[in-house]
């Protein structure tokens, strides 16, 4: 009735047609290459990559087409071999316009020369970071944070525990589930290589126990690896949230405003670990990923897709959407983004493409009845209803004090709200306003300090002259 839980709050979101149950049995199939891919240069958090190719260039599969611009950034590779037809812009599912490289496929699938690591088991931390960075690996659960940045703990911090996220708590998504089943060996090998490279003594793969087959497969594969174990987690959304997963597995709370590394943990998605393994063992950069297509489509499935493939190719492979489809989602139904334009490309963070029906249409908002369901659902132990009313009354300072900046936008509060209030939406807006204000305040303070310094300097100069 109350359900076991390993982290505060959380919910059991409902699923519609072609959810996990229907889709988890569908093996990963490779989506046939399309004739033209559009590869965005900004598929990660941080600075967009800078294009290294120009129109008319011939590129090979796996060739770098965009270089990382800064520490928090990631390079981008060609996912097909062919000719660059345009270095311009494209629209992502989120509606953002980002720089992109369009390549016409020559269907030769000609790889660049790959450089597998010569001594994969004896890598130093720096070498491993370099390989991961060069392979363009980012968090593949959807957050798309450059992985090598995560694996570079700041001064005085060290990675004690590696936590591998196989929770896949979002409804409908089964890509990680299939990956764990079909590439169990590679995933375990990847974790082992990372443990060796970074000197991590302990690693845990957390998997929600609605994936019993994956748990047993992983447990078998782990049996020989010292310090690595699989932990079954009771099903609860958002188990896959970094802070929630760390708490569920280690009972350590990531401090407010802190990072997982502050409690000695690094969380990597199973997809990310798989990509790391591929990069270290075979030298293959991140050019493909597994994506779930589910919901109101004729034949749901899990596909190995080349980055840059237009979403419509996925729908075509699934036999098209059902007539009752009202909304298309990139990502999971809880945190994903709805989109209309099916020409947008699959990116490194596209964990799923869903077609949802009328249940995804927003009902009318009514007054908050103070039922406190949102408080019970919040995995960050915040008081959503209160923060929401602060934000709606434009009392941003109070909202900040109430902790709105800690909101992880998981959508659990909005899901449970019987008054159908758009809580998550309101927090996103509130956070934006608070950030803008902070930036403005910081800029003002900096300007004032600069002016003060200038005046001081002028004064001193005068004094000297006198």
């Amino acid at each position, binding site marked *: *009735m109350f359900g076991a839980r390993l982290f505060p709050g959380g919910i059991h979101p409902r699923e519609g047609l072609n959810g996990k149950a229907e889709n988890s049995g569908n093996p990963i199939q490779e989506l046939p290459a399309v004739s033209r891919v559009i590869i965005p240069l900004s598929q990660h958090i941080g600075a967009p990559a800078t294009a290294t190719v120009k129109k008319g260039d011939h590129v090979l599969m796996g060739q770098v087409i965009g270089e990382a611009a800064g520490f928090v950034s990631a390079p981008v590779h060609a996912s097909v071999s062919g000719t660059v037809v345009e270095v311009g812009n494209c629209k992502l599912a989120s509606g953002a316009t980002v720089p992109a490289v369009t390549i016409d496929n020559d269907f030769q699938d000609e790889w660049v020369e790959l450089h597998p690591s010569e001594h994969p088991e004896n890598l130093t931390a720096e070498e491993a970071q370099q390989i991961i960075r060069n392979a363009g690996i980012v968090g593949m659960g959807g957050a798309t944070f450059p992985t090598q940045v995560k694996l570079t703990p700041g001064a005085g911090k060290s990675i004690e525990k590696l936590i591998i996220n196989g929770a896949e708590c979002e409804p409908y998504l089964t890509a990680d589930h299939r990956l764990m089943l079909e590439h169990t060996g590679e995933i375990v090998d990847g974790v082992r290589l990372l443990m060796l490279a970074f000197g991590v003594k302990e690693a845990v793969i957390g998997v929600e126990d609605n994936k019993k087959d994956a748990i047993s497969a992983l447990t078998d594969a782990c049996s020989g690896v010292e310090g690595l174990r699989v932990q079954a987690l009771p099903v609860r959304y958002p188990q896959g949230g970094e802070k929630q997963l760390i708490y569920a597995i280690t009972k350590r709370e990531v401090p407010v405003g802190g990072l997982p590394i502050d409690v000695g943990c690094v969380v990597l998605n199973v997809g990310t670990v798989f990509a790391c393994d591929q990069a270290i063992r075979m030298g293959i950069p991140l050019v493909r990923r597994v994506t779930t297509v589910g919901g109101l489509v004729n034949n749901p499935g899990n596909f190995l897709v080349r980055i840059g493939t237009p979403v419509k190719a996925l729908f075509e492979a699934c036999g098209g959407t059902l007539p009752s489809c009202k909304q298309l989602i990139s990502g999971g139904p809880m945190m994903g983004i709805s989109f209309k334009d099916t020409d947008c490309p699959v990116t490194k963070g596209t964990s799923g493409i869903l077609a949802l029906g009328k*249940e995804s249409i927003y009902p009318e908002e009514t007054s908050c009845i103070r039922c406190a*369901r949102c408080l019970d659902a919040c995995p960050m*132990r915040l008081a959503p209803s209160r923060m929401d009313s602060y934000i709606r009354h434009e009392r941003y300072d109070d909202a900040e004090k109430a902790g709105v900046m800690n909101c992880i936008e998981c959508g659990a509060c909005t899901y449970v709200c019987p008054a*159908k209030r758009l809580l998550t*939406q309101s927090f996103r807006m509130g956070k934006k306003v608070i950030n803008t204000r902070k930036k403005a305040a910081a800029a003002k303070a900096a300007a004032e300090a600069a002016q003060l310094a200038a005046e001081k300097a002028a004064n001193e100069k005068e004094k000297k002259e006198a």
Partner: protein
Amino acid sequence: MQRHLTITPSPHVRDRASTKNIMQEVCLALAPAGIASVILFGAAALKLICFSVLTCVLTEYLYQLITGHKSTVGDWSAVVTGLMLAYNLPATAPWWIPVVGGVIAILLVKQMFGGIGSNFMNPALTARAVLFISWGGLVASYPNTVYCGGVDTISSATPLALMAADPSQVKFMDLLLGNVPGILGETCKIALLLGGAYLIIRQIIDWRIPACFIGTVFVLYLLTSGFNFELAVKEIFAGGLMLGAFFMATDYATCPLSRKGRILMGLGCGIFTFVIRAYANYPEGTSFAILFMNVLTPLIDRYTMPKCFGEVKKHA
């Protein structure tokens, strides 16, 4: 492909529960007590329930019509208020008592503060208190049941009053079935327990409030009576305690938000109920205890807000 697609912010799935069906479920949970009251007190009970519910719904409708707000009659919350108000009246009350009460509950306590969710005191209970203070003779007289003297005869003493003298005068079975003098909704404990259990299982109310409420009263009676178990059990089965603990103290708008706060709410209600029952003018303390805790709720909320995830560690 492009037909009628929409763009909305996440999350894209929502729970089925809505304000309307929560209120409907509360009505459903209140139904057994209502049926029991009609069986116990006859048509007079039905008449009062109808008057009360109709007045509440009509007042809400008219207020929103006049002020130009969108009508919220469809969310059933006025019906819940109406039912609770009626359950708090004796079967002998004249028809205008629930009418005046309903207007006070909906207009003065609920709508003037912004409607559903904005009231800081339970509308039905506040209205009952106003009626109680104003027309004590009409509202605080408790008729016998149909099976025990008939509704026309006013009982000299409620079970609570009888028990104050000698607990063995009251039969436990009568308390359970409701064959005792009292207000409409409070007498039949089986019906109330049924409704309360339903609400807890459906996770509509937080079990902490009724559990702490009833538990506190029980413990306090046990302690002050020199561990007279019989008295303590009968005390929690007498009067409006069950009705209050399951249906009134758990009113969303007027109880604290956090779990800690709800435990405090239950404890506070229990202590004040005991104190008023045992020492004050009024034989029944439940409603005033709940009202007082309603008033305390904003402060409880202020000091019991849960610490944000990750904040505990920092101080440790």
